[in-house]
């Protein structure tokens, strides 16, 4: 799958594109978890993601634990309706800092 990586205002921004299913979740895991070794806050921008399964949630749970262990903030932004639905069903919404879009997430991290 297509995954974009960039650094904006000192935050590592990861943007997965399309769908995260059991087949592609490993690619997200390989891209996302090493970001916590760079010593900067991490933002996952879901703005171009229209689908996530429990395999993708598993990767985000691993990332949240990495965030807690390293003290580096992790935030999520730009969830589409189906992605938001899966987060709510799974009780994941309360485990993460979730923002409406990338700009709001970056602004919040700037204030942190």
């Amino acid at each position, binding site marked *: 799958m297509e995954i974009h990586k960039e650094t904006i205002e000192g935050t590592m921004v990861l943007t997965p594109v399309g769908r995260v*299913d059991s*087949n592609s979740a490993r690619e997200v895991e390989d891209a996302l978890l090493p970001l916590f070794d760079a010593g900067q806050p991490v933002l996952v921008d879901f703005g171009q993601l229209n*689908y996530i399964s429990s395999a993708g949630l*598993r990767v985000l*749970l*691993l990332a*949240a634990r990495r965030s807690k262990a390293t003290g580096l903030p992790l935030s999520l932004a730009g969830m589409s309706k189906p992605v938001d639905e899966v987060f709510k069903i799974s009780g994941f919404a309360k485990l993460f800092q979730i923002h409406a879009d990338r700009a709001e997430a970056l602004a919040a991290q700037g204030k942190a």
Partner: protein
Amino acid sequence: MSRLHPPALRLSIANDLAEIGRIAPVIEEFCAEHGLGEEVAHAVNLSLDELLTNTISYGFEDGGQHAIDIALEAAGDRATVTIRDDAVAFDPTEAGDPDLDLDLDDRPIGGLGIHIVRAMMDEVRYARIDGHNQLTLTKLIAR
């Protein structure tokens, strides 16, 4: 207007995780064509993803190739999905519910898939028939 045969989509896939992404657009197209709506398409695709992932990852102990038969039927106010495979017997309706109130450290790393299927679907039924698992999922259509 009555129909002798409600519209149905029949697919046969191999026990390969890549098949899940391959059938997703086919199901979306069927749902769009028959006016089932994006919500039904998402519920069907997500449920199939979760259930097929379990079956393909853990259901076949011989390492060989197996076929899994999937049908999606739209009749009246409901969409019905059936999944039939010759994997080891597994009844997802008997799986326990995960505790969604646990905090980050206590959350188990797996076990959400079947919970998601139950939440997305209106009914989940299981039968073991002639050495095959047969799952029937029903989703009410808001037309």
